[in-house]
């Protein structure tokens, strides 16, 4: 592995026992390779998450094979852990349930919260590992106060801090993200210099348990009832129909057509129970604020105080927008400096530090 000598050292050189979660993709392959290069005692694991009771038949055996082969190439042990029942319970069932309530959940965040950085992290501890590593593009830092920080990955286009924004001190103390300092090109260069079979593998884009061919609609249609609904404008006048109210998202433009003035129409409100979708103009479909109920709010370290400035990001690769954090009864109110397209209920809002915009401060789930 001489080719990696020039790579930046990602973490301390004290050898640790590290369990690395290998998805079969290039990032986690290189994460494992870097840890081996740094002299740690590394064991790879691939989670079998899908194949539970509500499996649609898709299969990730090829990804497991890739991960295992990379582990062999690196000379490390590899184990497959079957967490499919937990995944079904903690990720898939809530995903379906949230949609049935007309909300738009983020299953990747729930998987990170409940599976990777909970069940797997616990397991790593029981098996005597000092750290759990993943291939996420994010960085763990330490503030002068000793507080662990979660920071954006070095490659802005690949940054995954959003899907990790619910991590807290306990988890951050025990995780490493070896590729967080690297650009994707650098990651691929290391993989190809080591002849890892995942070097040219395309990035995964979709929700892992939803088949690329049939898509979200078919997945949900197999697991819940989808109901047609009327579409009305702000004055309650009929403006069309949709055939599945549960799949309509606030702020959505697609499928809503144009108003009488010829302007595009946006979804401003979804009422699943009443089977009604309300649409309006672009101007109607902006919000000055979003409420994050306390139950879904987490802080990386010290919480933001009422009146604190912050930067909000409302999707995995969304544009960060300046905001002020206020406390609102039993939740956090995020007031945007400039009105924004509405945040769909169920969507995660990640909050970054206003002064240090790479640092995640916390996250919440939109009401």
């Amino acid at each position, binding site marked *: 592995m001489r080719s990696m000598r020039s790579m930046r050292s990602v973490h301390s050189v004290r050898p640790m026992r590290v369990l690395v979660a290998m998805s079969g993709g290039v990032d986690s392959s290189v994460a494992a390779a870097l840890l081996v290069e740094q002299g740690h005692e590394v064991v790879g694991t691939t989670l079998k998450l899908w*194949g539970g009771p509500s499996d649609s038949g898709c299969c990730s055996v090829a990804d497991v094979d890739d991960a295992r082969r990379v582990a062999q190439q690196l000379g490390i042990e590899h184990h497959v852990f079957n967490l499919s029942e937990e995944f079904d319970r903690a990720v898939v069932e809530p995903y379906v349930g949230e949609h049935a309530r007309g909300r738009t959940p983020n299953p990747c965040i729930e998987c990170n919260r409940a599976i990777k950085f909970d069940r797997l992290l616990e397991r790593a*501890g*029981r*098996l005597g590992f000092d750290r759990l590593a993943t291939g996420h593009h994010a960085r763990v830092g330490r503030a002068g106060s000793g507080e662990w920080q979660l920071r954006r990955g070095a490659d802005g286009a690949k940054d995954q801090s959003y899907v990790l924004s619910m991590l807290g001190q306990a988890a951050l103390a025990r995780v490493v993200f070896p590729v967080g300092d690297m650009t994707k090109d650098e990651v691929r260069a290391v993989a190809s210099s080591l002849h890892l079979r995942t070097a040219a593998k395309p990035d995964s884009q979709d929700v892992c348990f939803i088949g690329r061919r049939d898509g979200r609609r078919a997945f949900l249609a197999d697991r819940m009832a989808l109901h047609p609904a009327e579409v009305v404008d702000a004055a309650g006048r009929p403006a069309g129909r949709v055939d599945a109210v549960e799949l309509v998202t606030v702020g959505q433009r697609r499928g809503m057509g144009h108003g009488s003035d010829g302007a595009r129409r946006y979804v401003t409100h979804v009422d699943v129970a009443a089977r009604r979708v309300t649409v309006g103009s672009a101007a109607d479909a902006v919000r000055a604020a979003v409420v994050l109920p306390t139950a879904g709010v987490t802080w990386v370290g010290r919480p933001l105080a009422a009146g604190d400035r912050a930067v909000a990001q409302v999707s995995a690769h969304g544009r960060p927008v300046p905001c002020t954090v206020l406390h609102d009864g039993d939740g956090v109110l995020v007031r945007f400096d400039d009105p924004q397209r509405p945040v769909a209920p169920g969507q995660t809002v990640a909050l970054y530090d206003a002064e240090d915009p790479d640092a995640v401060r916390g996250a919440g789930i939109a009401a």
Partner: protein
Amino acid sequence: MRSRPTSYLDHAATAPLRPEVAAAMAEVHAEPLGNPTGTHPPAQRARRLLEEARDEVAAFLGRDPGEVVFTSGGTEAANLAVLGSVEAAVRAGGEAVVLCSAVEHPAVRESARAAACAGADCRELPVDAAGIVDLNALARALSSRVTLVAVMAANNETGVVQPLPDVVDAVRRRAPQAAVFTDAVQAAPWLDLADRAAGVDLVSLSAHKLGGPVGTGVLAAGPRLALRARQHGGGQERERRSGTQDVAGAVGLATALRLVAAQRVSTAARVAARRDQLCEGLLARIEGAHRTVPPGVAVLPGHLHLCLAGVSREELLVALGREGICASGGSSCASGALERSHVLAAMGVERGLAEGAVRFSLGYDTGEEDVARAVEVVPAVVAALRRT
């Protein structure tokens, strides 16, 4: 990976190749070896070695050499037994009804499932809490329509020995037209199959569970049996299994069987004593360790199946492996992940307890030190997993 003393307690998954087998197989290739179907001297030699091996396999099973079909392993043998019988029955213009126990190996269960997809009527026979097939349910299910009854000689996970002679009796009395198939892959190192499987129509074996090579198996198919080939070609193995025979594999299997037969009684006694020692040692030192099979039930000498409360078998097996103890936790799926055991489910083992299922399987070369190390290491590993 660190090298440390290893206790290999996973013989039921695959047994170490016996040195005598390796030597016999090397000898096969030490001189020119032709295709057994050819005419020249190297071909004649290949054919002679193959038929000598067949004679030995037949002697081991107490059968006629003409019944012995060499296959690529136990799985192919099971597929041939189940699907070959079903297809023969369908071709004969009739229906096919297959009864198989609920604890059969996936090679048998999935073959039955494939037969069901092809139109056969496949039914599962329940087992009791020890995993023994319910003979009353069998009696009720037997009729003049039944084509095949599949009951394994002993279970691969628990080692529980099935009442094969009773199964044969019941079938002969109530469904004389039906064939009986027994998967004897696990039983072969331990039981005298010439006696135990007498009267059984179809018997499958796998060489690598006996200290023979991986990739060789046998289906012994009785003369009164209609069986359609699953693999077509040059008509080898009396048109029951086409493809050039693996002579070295057949010689390896025959050599392993010879060694097994010569040492069966002494090996079984020695291994059973060590297994009991392991069982007592672990039960005494691990709180919440349950014997999956109640005492008093006949189990193969090498098998010890335990359920450890409050432990995940995935974690246990990884941790044990890192401490040099090789054990197993049930069947894996295509990805290599552990699956829920259909055997424990059929026995009614509570789900939480089955999560801590572990199989130790001892074999011909298991020494006292292997057991001593396991008795020392396993409780410590379990305690460490439970502590955190």
